[in-house]
Structure formats: structure tokens, C-alpha cells
């Protein structure tokens, strides 16, 4: 399973997928412009899911919220590199079996 960091047209996004190439195409189809994951990580599903959950729950303050809806885009100001650094720190701190592959 993969965890990706995606520079979007307005904000930095992230997510997990079992098929990163197809997911990239999904974004491209939705945006009407080519989407490419800038950073990609790979690991066992439970570890990848945990990484995503850590961001979505424990660090949910990072996320862009529309009214009561919490999205999977980071709030204004976050860069892909800042998220990359955060992900590396989380992986190291929690001993997650995840490696950066892009």
C-alpha cells in the first residue's frame, strides 16, 4: 500500500492507495490537469493506514476544514516539503515500516 503527498492547485493533499497510478489518473480526471504525486511511500497496509490516521486524527488541526467537514487537504500554508518532513518524523518516531519510494 502507498501513502502519497500531492501538490494540488490550491492546497497540499495526501492519502493512501493500493494503486497509485490509477489514483493519479483519478485526480487528473477530476482536475482537468495532470496530477502527479510528488512524494510516495510504501509499506504494509496497517502501517500506511496508521500513518494516514495519525495525520487525520491526532494531528487533525493540520487539515483544511469547510464548515464541519474535514477534508484530506492541508490548511493554507503547508508545503509538500513540510508535510514530507512531518511524515518522516512520524515514521521514525513510531517505528512505522514505511519507506519513501519517490
Amino acid at each position, binding site marked *: 500500500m502507498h501513502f502519497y503527498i500531492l501538490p494540488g492547485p490550491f492546497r497540499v493533499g495526501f492519502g493512501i492507495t493500493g494503486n497509485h497510478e490509477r489514483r493519479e489518473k483519478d485526480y487528473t480526471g477530476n482536475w482537468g490537469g495532470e496530477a502527479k504525486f510528488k512524494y510516495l511511500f510504501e509499506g*504494509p*497496509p*496497517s*502501517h500506511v*493506514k*496508521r*500513518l494516514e*490516521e495519525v495525520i487525520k*486524527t*491526532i494531528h*487533525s488541526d493540520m487539515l483544511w476544514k469547510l*464548515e*464541519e467537514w474535514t477534508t484530506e487537504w492541508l490548511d493554507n500554508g503547508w508545503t509538500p516539503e513540510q508535510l514530507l518532513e512531518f511524515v518522516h518524523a512520524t515514521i521514525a*518516531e*513510531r*517505528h*512505522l*515500516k514505511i519507506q519513501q519510494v519517490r
Partner: protein
Amino acid sequence: MIPAYEEVVRRPNVMRNLNPLKNHISTVINLESRLSELNNYKKWQKLMAEYRKQGIVFSPKLRPMIKMVKLGLLDIDEDIQRMLDVKHCTDKIAALGVFDPRLLQVVFCAKAIGAEVYHAVDGQHTATVVAALVDAGLFEGETDWREVEVPVLYIETDNKAFARKAFALINGKGKKKISQYIEHRTKVMARRIDDSEDDDDKDAERKQSICEKYDCYPVDLDSPHANKTPGTFTHMQAFIMSDKTLEMACKFHNDYFHYDPINGSLWFMINDIKTGFDAANIKITDKFLRELAGLLQGCFAGLAEFHEAVHSAHKLWGKMIYNIDKFPWQDDAIAVVLLHIYQRMGGTQQLPQHMLDRFEKIMDFVTDDIKALYE
């Protein structure tokens, strides 16, 4: 091979200061601060704007009124209220050692317009018990229950449908229900602030202290800390566990997963392991618990993902073997699946066979990446 547990840097738990149950003195907040809190809530502001936009205003006269009313003037519409539960009156409201006149609640009534006729829409049990206690001569100086006055909150209406809705509203639909967390908090605070000698309050406070000793903190489901702040939990059934088991669970969390909120599976896992091992007269060693922590951390990145994996396997097992789409969840699967994986990965701790014999087939339905850990 079972992965060795790897230490995670321990940070001071923020709940030590934020825990609302730590107080030993009461905190009083005035209504103005509550008003300010609500006025600052964006959805409230939008709601008020909508009221203004639609030009809606209310007559102050429509607010309920309160009056001392003689019990003899109260009527009960059986088509609105439930039937009288005589067992509830006897065993709960008026029970010896339980009944306290200071705790009597106001009776909610619909008053007929222009007449002294009050239809109780809520509180018939209270009113009946008071009348019966007076009738039995248990209130000093009172002999005729019909003349005894009770506080009544009423609205004036001849519309029975409205009274019916009022009854539904009072009995749950419109009220914010008291959560299990608030019930627990009330008991803990009664002991800590008011030195309550009630056994329930003492039990709750003692269990709360066990949790706090290990940086574990109960929070309400709608707390901003729920599922977010390390050490917090919302599963109040944890307090049903014995002191020993609760302590074992909290210690396990604090020793190994102090960096996460507590996943509900912890309580079932530890409780079932403790019960199962005790029954088989097998000692639970620190080495074994550390091995389990290593397995959970190394293979599942913690309890949350392990919990989800067991749920998925259990669901698939029910579907494939029993052809049941909504297979009823069995929480004891959590501990048993963990023990099966432990054993299959080469764990050497003796395990209770009576536990392993349960859910064995479920192991056919764990995902391939889990099977790959031991195959």
C-alpha cells in the same frame, strides 16, 4: 518471528493538566460565559441570522410557567403518559435508602386554558409516589394527599396533540441525554469535591485514580480530545472491569502505546486475556505482554489497525462460512486472534487452549499480508 517492541519517545501527557476530573474544588462558571461560548459558535450565528431574516419573534407569555399545585388537581391522560410502573415506583423511586424528598422532580403539565385542570405529561410516577407516601403517613403533619402541593411546570393549551409532543420531548427526543462519561464524572466529582460516602461514587473515583496513575483519561464522545489526544478513551465500559484488570490494561497502554489515544480493543483484549489465563491458571508475565506489544506495534502499528483487521476477518468469516452478511460482532475475537497470531509467529508462552479452540477458523480469513507474517 515476533518483532521486538521498539521504545517510542515519551512526551508529558497534556491531559495531566487538561483532565476535567482532576479538580478537587468545584469550578463555577456564570451563565454569561456560557452565553458568550454559544454566541461565538458559527452555526449558532447563522441560525440567529436566519431567524432575523425570516422575521421570527416569540411571545414571552409562551414560555412555561411554574406554580405550586395541589396533587388533587392533577389528572393523567393514559393515552399520553405510559401506564403506571408500580415496580419502578416501589423498587426505584421510593426504595428504602434511595428515596430522598430533596431529589423530587418538578411535574410537567398541560393546563387547560381558563381552568384549574392540570394534565401531567411527565412526572406521573413522582406525583403518585408523593401522594402514596403522604397517604401512608410518611410525611410529618400531612394527612390528605389531595391538599399537598408540588411544583408544576406547565403550559396552557387545550391541544392534546401538543401535550403529546411535549411528553415525547421531555422523555428523550429533545433532551441531550446524559452520557456514560457524564454519569462517571458526576460520581468522581461527588467523591473528590463533596467527599461522598456513596459506594458507587467511591468505586468510580478509585477506578478514575487507577486510570490517572497510568496517564489514561476518560473523555466524552464529543470531547475535542476523543480519539486524538494520547491516553484518552471514550469506552466507559472500561470501568466495569475489576480494579486489577483495569490497572493491567492502563499499564499496558502506558508502557507501550502512550503515544496514541486508547483504542477500545484494549479493554476487551486485556480483559479476555486476564480472564482466560486466570481460568487456565497460567501466569501473565511482563515478557509475554512485551511480546504482544511488539507484535501489535511491529505488525499492525498499534491497536487501532489490529482491531480493524480482526473486524474485517470476523465479518468475512461470518459471510463465507455461515452466509450471514451482518454477522454479529464478537469482541472476544480480539484477544483470541492476537493469541493465534502470536502462536503462529513462534511465540513460546503457554496459551490457554480453551481460548485457542475458539475462532480458529477465523484465521483463514485474515488478509494475505497478515498471513505473510507467519506463513
